[in-house]
């Protein structure tokens, strides 16, 4: 029993509600939300430390013992995800202070930002399948509002599609819950895992596994279900796009990894091979989309898809090394992808456009921005010694060990195409003849770069300090591959 686990869920929720009261006091809203976000980051580190030292922490809500009540569970994976989302939460918030317009701020931007974080943290920490659905909805409803916030014509059109497809996925989540409840008679994930092991995972349970894969894949942007993503992430301002690009799809991936390392683990020949095939399609078609685009934000959005594929690849290979690689990759991706979206926001602030063909030669007036972008971009592509390299290395190494040469080949091709499209951005935006108007040449961008700097530093640190961080990922993977630890600490057996 550890009440600490409630903080990352309850704190943003309560603070968000309080912020509504300060509708017209923007400074107060900014201060309160900044303090909350930073405080939450501290708590996230503290929780991870406790989990690392004392093992998996659980809390039974209302004192109802599992499997009857709802439990919150923090294992290493969940608490690591809470840390990452808190980091992105802080950084995007500070970037939003600089870039979000007054009108948007006034219409409850910060409260919904806090609700979004509450939903994301809840989804990471919950140990109950229906509760996962509820937190998904909390997160999604906040995201519906943030994605349409501002109400431009483009945003309205694409948000409608985003909302419809997500509501559709949520309804099938309920259907999946109905099926699994009728078979196992429980909703506690640890208890479901025990029952599924008893009744053996065949026929109908495989069908349910695929249903959950479809539901989470739709939210996470897996191969045939990703078409909603690039258009809808193009609409909102960069601070929000960075938050969504860093976090939202990863919640779907988190749910896939959680269910397919805890519950549906008894027929990997079917389920995990299916995930592997989807991973290949996701990587390949995502990066092809990125290569075809000529817009900063759209290229980045398509890269989200191709990189979700790498994470699914780690799960599909289903060994300690591969899952550790996937976890390292998630950490790397959340940090780097948010940073890139924020760079996109910074260049948009300077040039007023995200169209690559309308920009050139920014390197002359803004050298710091240019070189920082380059570091982050090649980290995304996987150049050593930055963080992208080590995660891909682990995945590809394990792929070769398991003799899955085709998927290894695809992931290497995708790496090259990623490098190609990131260089395309760098060449179009920063090289060439300077085309800026005189008034745009000396805009103060240090306040914009300040929130991004910690992220760039983190990708360098994750790369140079790969040894301890990778061994931490190995421990996380070890915990994931031995579900008995999770089950025992929840059910107290």
């Amino acid at each position, binding site marked *: 029993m550890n009440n600490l686990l409630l903080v990352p869920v309850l704190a943003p929720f309560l603070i968000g509600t309080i912020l509504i009261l300060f509708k017209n006091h923007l400074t107060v809203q900014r201060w309160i939300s900044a303090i909350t976000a930073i405080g939450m980051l501290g708590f996230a580190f503290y929780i991870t430390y406790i989990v690392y030292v004392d093992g998996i922490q659980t809390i039974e809500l209302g004192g109802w013992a599992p499997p009857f009540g709802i439990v919150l569970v923090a294992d290493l994976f969940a608490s690591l995800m809470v840390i990452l989302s808190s980091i992105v939460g802080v950084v995007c918030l500070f970037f939003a202070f600089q870039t979000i317009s007054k009108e948007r701020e006034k219409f409850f931007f910060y409260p919904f930002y806090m609700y979004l974080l509450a939903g994301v943290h809840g989804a990471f920490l919950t140990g109950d399948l229906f509760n996962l659905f509820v937190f998904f909805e909390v997160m999604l409803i906040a995201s519906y509002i943030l994605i*349409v916030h501002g109400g431009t*014509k*483009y945003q*309205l*059109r694409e948000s409608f599609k985003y909302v*419809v497809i997500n*509501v559709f996925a949520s309804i099938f989540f309920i259907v999946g819950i*109905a099926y699994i*409840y009728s078979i196992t008679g429980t909703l506690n994930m640890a208890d479901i895992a025990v029952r599924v092991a008893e009744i053996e995972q065949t026929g109908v349970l495989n069908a349910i596994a695929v249903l959950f894969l479809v539901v989470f894949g739709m939210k996470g942007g897996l191969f045939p279900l990703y078409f909603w993503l690039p258009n809808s992430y193009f609409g909102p301002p960069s601070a929000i796009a960075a938050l969504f690009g860093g976090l939202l799809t990863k919640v779907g991936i988190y749910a896939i990894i959680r269910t397919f390392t805890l519950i549906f683990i008894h027929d990997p020949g079917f389920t995990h091979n299916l995930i592997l095939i989807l991973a290949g399609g996701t990587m390949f078609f995502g990066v092809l989309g990125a290569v075809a685009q000529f817009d900063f934000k759209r290229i980045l959005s398509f890269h989200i898809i191709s990189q979700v594929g790498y994470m699914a690849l780690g799960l599909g290979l289903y060994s300690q090394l591969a899952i550790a690689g996937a976890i390292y990759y998630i950490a790397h991706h959340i940090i780097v992808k948010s940073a890139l979206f924020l760079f996109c926001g910074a260049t948009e602030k300077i040039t007023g456009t995200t169209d690559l063909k309308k920009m050139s030669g920014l390197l002359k007036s803004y050298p710091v921005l240019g070189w920082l972008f380059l570091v982050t971009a090649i980290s995304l592509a996987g150049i050593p010694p930055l963080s992208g390299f080590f995660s891909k290395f682990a995945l590809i190494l394990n792929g070769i060990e398991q003799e899955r040469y085709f998927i290894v080949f695809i992931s290497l091709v995708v790496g090259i195409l990623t490098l190609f499209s990131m260089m395309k951005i760098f060449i179009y935006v920063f090289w060439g003849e300077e085309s800026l108007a005189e008034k745009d040449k000396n805009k103060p961008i240090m306040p914009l770069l300040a929130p991004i700097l910690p992220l760039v530093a983190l990708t360098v640190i994750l790369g140079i300090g790969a040894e301890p961080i990778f061994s931490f990922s190995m421990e996380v993977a070890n915990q994931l591959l031995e579900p008995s630890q999770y089950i025992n600490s929840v059910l107290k057996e």
Partner: protein
Amino acid sequence: MELLMILLIGIIFSVSTYLILTNSLLRVIFGIIMLSHGAHLLLLTLSGFNEGAPPLLGEESSVYMDPLPQALILTAIVISFGVTAFLLVLGYRTYRAHETDKLDKLRGHADE
């Protein structure tokens, strides 16, 4: 009773699938509403019916209904109510901004 309910759910799902695939904004929203009703009924049906027995009449009663699915449905209904209200407003605003409720005119252009 279960068979009847499952047939009903099948009909609801097929009708809502038809509605979601139509070209009109409002019909898509109606389809989503129908689909969520279908999912809620499915949740209720799959936990099984014990006819004539109320949920939990004290610890001695031998037959009772499982109360959990009803609690789950209540939560799910509240959520889908909120989302539907939001979706209707969003659909209306989209209609006002684009002056059309035909989805094929909301595809967007290649040069954006």
